[in-house]
């Protein structure tokens, strides 16, 4: 968890290099993003997978989407909140994703119309 604890505000980074080449920045972004896509796989390949690690990873996989969506629902407008609610209700009833997504988009559009 060091990566977020170390840098309370990105704007307060004191050691900084200013770059004028867009290509250099794009290359740095590419390497950084690839490191995130590969880093978790690499970490797991060096951590022995005990029962505890396995349970942690399994619960974490159930949590990722919720952690993405909860602040979206909290900070979104009523269009966003009711869209998510409509999707949840429709998916629970019809057990299919696409009608739920369609309902969510329709509700967001309707709420924002009025």
């Amino acid at each position, binding site marked *: 968890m060091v990566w977020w604890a170390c840098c309370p505000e990105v704007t307060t980074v004191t050691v900084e290099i200013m770059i004028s080449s867009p290509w250099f920045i794009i290359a740095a972004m*590419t390497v*950084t*993003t690839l490191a995130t896509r590969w*880093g978790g796989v690499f970490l797991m390949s060096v951590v022995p997978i005990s029962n505890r690690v396995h349970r942690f990873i399994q619960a974490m996989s159930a*949590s990722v989407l919720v*952690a993405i969506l909860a602040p979206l629902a909290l900070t979104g407008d009523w269009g966003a909140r009711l869209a998510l609610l409509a999707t949840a209700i429709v998916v629970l009833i019809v057990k299919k994703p696409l009608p739920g997504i369609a309902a969510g*988009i329709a509700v967001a559009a309707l709420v924002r119309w009025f």
Partner: protein
Amino acid sequence: MTEPSQLSQLNGALIWQGFRHLAPISLFVIVFGAAFGLAAVQLGLTEANVLAMSGLVFAGASQFAALDLWGDRIPLFTVMITVFAINARHLLMGATLYPWLRETSIGKRYALMVLASDANWALAMQHFHQKKPGFGMLVGGGLALWTAWMIGTGLGIYFGNAISDPKAYGLDMAMGCFLLALVVGGEKNVRIVTIWGVAAVASILAYLYLPENSHVIVGALAGGLVGLLPGGDDRDR
């Protein structure tokens, strides 16, 4: 029980299946690719810069964040830290896919992760939990999303925004609703719902009180800790 080695298989048919599975939701990605392409050229990036960034980085939220920092002189470390924080969720994706990734060769397991993003990862996990091969969803779905992101970026560069106000039509909610549909459509029991609740509260608290872009990691790790509590079962991989 199906062995992970069987679930880890990948072939053209499975990739095509994944591509078709995510093709509908990818149409919405085009809209946001267009918004990115337009915003980027308006900031003075060249067409080649914008296309290269979308093609190589392929992570929308972090690309928009980089535009916020863009200028004649760009702060390298700030860009890298911001991009890392927003994309740190990929670390969780790689880790959660590891039980199936480790059945493949080392080169292949890293190649499989190149196009990982929210929607195709979630779909791959759903397939694995249903004891179906998931890497077709990860790779084929990733190709569908990447293609849409590139088409959208190009449309934004050359034709401006495809739709002037996507929010008015609710289009900004497509991806959120898709991800929520995967959550709600999955397995539900007291243990899972407890994990969801803890993850939701932790991510909201992190969003409100912790450094920017930390909420996904904090929420997911908090949910993971709940998994260590006694109860629940260990049979499922």
